[in-house]
């Protein structure tokens, strides 16, 4: 029987990459000289599963490489080797190596990379070197061992002396100890001094007593609970481990455990429960992992689409339901019941939609988790001492946004490290602690996610930016501009104040891209800075890209959706406030501000119903920092709409950001305000005028169609020349 292993490959890769992330995160937590067994164990387990998996699927190179990793970790785990910075760095690089090997395996590339071989050699070198080292100073290990014990403060000393009759009531100490061992790290010492001579031994009597030490964050009640059934049949004494007595006591349990193991062979309770300690912990981590399942994103999207359909069907039914109510008064009881049912359907669909949308939401830690490593590497490379503080990593946001915000964030954090934080000596000279700090924070504010990147570095140098801007001709020399505007300059394409180019940053590409990416997501970025104190960057993002709060407006026969976030206000036009410029462009005087008027009907070539705009409705909107007034015929409902792409089956259209499906099943287009304002600017100058000329000339539609073809051909010819040269 042969099983096609290929079907499991994807799962293997997914799990392995996850394992690598775990390894990476824990390696970063691991400090030189640390003996934290939990961390090393976690790393080891991850490496072990990757090795096992790659062996099973026949990726022998990966298996061989991870085997080296595993050996190194195993030695660390068994205290045969000290955890030093060199091995941590090497392990981190090996994680990268395994990652690229797995990538290459998956994509069918060549995994015999030079880097891999180098890393392999380094691992082997470390393995060879440190082995001898560790045998030289075994004393240091015992010291470390005791440190492990002293470092844990919470725990209980339990003295358990059952009455001789306890076993007869069907109580067995062994299961109780195993329950205890699941609560924390348990060491058991048996006191067999009560054992009589074999001739006097009654097989049903209990002659043993135990002293147990339970280390871990356990409540006293939990321990009592274990002994609940035998409370009346034993002497039980539970006392917290005292810090004072601990110092004397530390070495005792270890010694006793080993002797207990030998002594207890009679009933095996001690020895077995010690073993249980490990089992219990493994079980615990296992159960916490099973609470999530791995589902392909396409399946989730399918569900979201279907739920979207359901919402539309539901609102269609709701509409029909309300119509029935209106025009037929007979059979009131039935319509009443129908209406109740429809109301319930509405509630349920809304809840269903909300929970389905939540499936797509992931904690932002998915992105944040890559930063510790990056900061670690960059700081080292630049000889800076940097601490990264991450908060709010549980804040959830849509997966699509998550994917797109990663790179801009990396860029901003890199900027903070490169330009923001000074070298340690500079910092100390400025009276600041030598270690710089970069803060990363995420939080919900209203309907937005706010990501903050803050550093305590030198801040933005206003004068430098300004002089650079003047040099580049972005600003006039005698122009006085606000601080805010100055900070805004760094978002200009190609702008950089870095003295020297580094491979990290300073090329001036980036900040404009950062801002564009964030704006594409419907967010914005804000900079606050204080010279000498640090810089603070705030990124505001919408919670999700799939749903939008919209204002429905009608223009002629068409219905459009204006995103609520871009609406400032809606008002009735007073003709006295309308002025024209050069007889064509109209502006509206709104509280001492002249804002351009955009006729949606002109831009979208919709036949106008009313010629005068006096008394009409205007929606004041803002896009990319520019205000404009949209002339609409009517304001309709406000509602949440599910955004559908026009590009999937068509192509992007200027001035539109997408489409949605309304309650009656028809399609409505969603306006892209920033794009619309850009459109209007172009319209005013060229298209509107040419249209007028065309109207006057009275050209037929087919004639103009031919013109377009000619224009196309003209365009193509120079293109061809370009390719030839």
């Amino acid at each position, binding site marked *: 029987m042969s099983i096609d292993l290929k079907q499991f490959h994807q799962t293997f890769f997914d799990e392995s990459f996850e394992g690598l992330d775990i390894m990476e995160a824990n390696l970063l937590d691991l400090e030189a000289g640390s003996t934290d067994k939990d961390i090393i164990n976690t790393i080891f387990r991850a490496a072990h599963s990757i090795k096992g998996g790659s062996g099973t699927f026949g990726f022998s190179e990966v298996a061989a490489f991870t085997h080296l990793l595993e050996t190194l970790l195993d030695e660390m785990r068994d205290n045969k080797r000290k955890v030093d910075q060199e091995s941590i760095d090497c392990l981190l690089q090996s994680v990268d190596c395994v990652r690229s090997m797995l990538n290459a395996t998956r994509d069918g590339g060549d995994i015999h990379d030079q880097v891999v071989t180098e890393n392999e050699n380094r691992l082997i070198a470390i393995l060879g070197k440190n082995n001898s080292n560790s045998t030289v100073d075994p004393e240091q290990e015992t010291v470390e061992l005791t440190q492990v014990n002293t470092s844990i403060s919470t725990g209980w000393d339990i003295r358990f002396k059952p009455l001789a009759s306890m076993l007869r009531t069907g109580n067995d100490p062994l299961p109780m100890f195993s329950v205890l061992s699941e609560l924390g790290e348990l060491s058991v010492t048996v006191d067999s001094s009560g054992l009589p001579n074999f001739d006097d031994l009654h097989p049903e009597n209990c002659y043993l007593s135990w002293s147990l030490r339970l280390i871990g964050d356990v409540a006293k009640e939990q321990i009592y609970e274990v002994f609940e059934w035998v409370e009346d049949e034993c002497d039980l004494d539970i006392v917290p481990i005292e810090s004072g007595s601990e110092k004397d006591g530390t070495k005792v349990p270890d010694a006793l455990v080993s002797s207990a193991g030998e002594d207890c062979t009679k009933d095996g309770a001690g020895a077995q429960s010690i073993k249980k300690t490990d089992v219990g912990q493994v079980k615990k981590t296992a159960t916490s992992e099973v609470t999530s399942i791995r589902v392909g994103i396409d399946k989730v999207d399918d569900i979201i*689409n*279907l739920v*979207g*359909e359901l919402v*539309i069907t539901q609102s269609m039914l709701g509409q029909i339901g309300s119509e029935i109510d209106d025009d037929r008064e007979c059979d009131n009881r039935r319509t009443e019941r129908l209406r109740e049912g429809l109301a319930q359907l509405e509630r349920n669909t809304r809840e269903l939609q909300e929970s389905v949308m939540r499936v797509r939401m992931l904690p932002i830690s998915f992105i944040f988790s890559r930063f510790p490593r990056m900061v670690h590497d960059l700081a080292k490379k630049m000889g800076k001492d940097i601490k990264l503080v991450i908060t709010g990593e549980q804040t959830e946001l849509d997966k699509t946004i998550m994917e797109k915000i990663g790179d801009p964030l990396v860029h901003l954090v890199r900027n903070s490290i490169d330009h923001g934080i000074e070298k340690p000596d500079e910092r100390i000279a400025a009276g600041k602690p030598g270690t710089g700090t970069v803060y990363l924070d995420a939080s919900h504010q209203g309907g937005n996610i706010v990501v903050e990147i803050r550093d305590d570095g030198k801040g933005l140098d206003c004068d430098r930016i300004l002089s650079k801007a003047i040099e580049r001709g972005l600003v006039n020399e005698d122009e006085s501009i606000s601080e805010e505007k100055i900070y805004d300059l760094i978002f200009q394409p190609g702008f950089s104040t870095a003295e020297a180019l580094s491979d990290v940053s300073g090329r001036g590409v980036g900040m404009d891209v950062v801002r564009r990416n964030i704006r594409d997501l419907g967010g914005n970025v804000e900079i606050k800075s204080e010279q000498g104190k640090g810089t603070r960057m705030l990124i505001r993002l919408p919670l999700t890209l799939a749903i939008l709060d919209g204002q429905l407006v009608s223009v002629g026969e*068409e219905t459009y959706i204006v995103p609520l976030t871009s609406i400032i206000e809606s008002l009735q036009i007073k003709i006295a406030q309308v002025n024209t410029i050069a007889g064509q462009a109209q502006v509206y005087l709104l509280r001492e501000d002249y804002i351009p008027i955009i006729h949606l009907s002109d*831009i*979208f*070539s*919709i036949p106008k119903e009313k010629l005068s705009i006096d008394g009409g409705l205007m929606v004041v909107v803002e896009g990319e920092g520019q205000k404009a007034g949209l002339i609409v015929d009517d304001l309709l409902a406000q509602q949440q709409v599910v955004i*559908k*792409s*026009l590009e*999937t*089956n*068509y*192509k992007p*259209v*200027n*001035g*539109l950001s997408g*489409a949605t*499906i309304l309650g009656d*099943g*028809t*399609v*409505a*287009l969603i306006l892209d305000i920033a794009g619309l304002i850009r*459109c209007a600017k*172009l*319209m005013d100058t060229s*298209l509107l005028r040419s249209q007028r000329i065309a109207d006057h000339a009275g050209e037929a*539609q*087919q004639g103009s*169609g031919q013109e*377009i073809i000619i*224009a*196309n051909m003209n365009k193509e010819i120079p293109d061809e020349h370009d390719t030839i040269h």
Partner: protein
Amino acid sequence: MSTTQSIEAAPEIIGMDTSADSSQYLTFILSDEEYGVDILRVQEIKGWDTVTLIPNTPGYIKGVINLRGTIVPIIDLRLRFNLDSVNYSPLTVVIVLKIVSEDDERVMGIVVDGVSDVYNVSEDQMKPPPDFGNVVNVDYVKGLATVDEKMIIVLDIDHLLTSSVLESIDKASC
């Protein structure tokens, strides 16, 4: 769904052989001419329904419809071929097609006068279109096939519809 099934059953009814080198074509009528498209590209056939206009597009792009949650553009082939437009009635038919271009797959609908038949057309039945010079643009014609003494114009729908969408950029950009 029922439409698609009846189409699939069609060859048996007509009693034509389905040899390996022939493919099936769905034909439709456009101003008394019969056009064919590869039947494997046909997703469904539906009646004309109201569309939402997309601003600043050429006249042959009628707009978009909601096809079970996806936004699908509708192209009027009569207008695309510069034929006279006719008023739409409930009998006007929209053929929803899968269009494959270099980078991706799209779903689009074409408005036609009516669906005609399904034919098996073998490779050697298909003749390359003659060159008409500037009179008729035959770029979008894959070939001409004669079935039952009728001529069927087999369309290269991928080329036709992709270019329809791309060409409209010029007019749509404002």
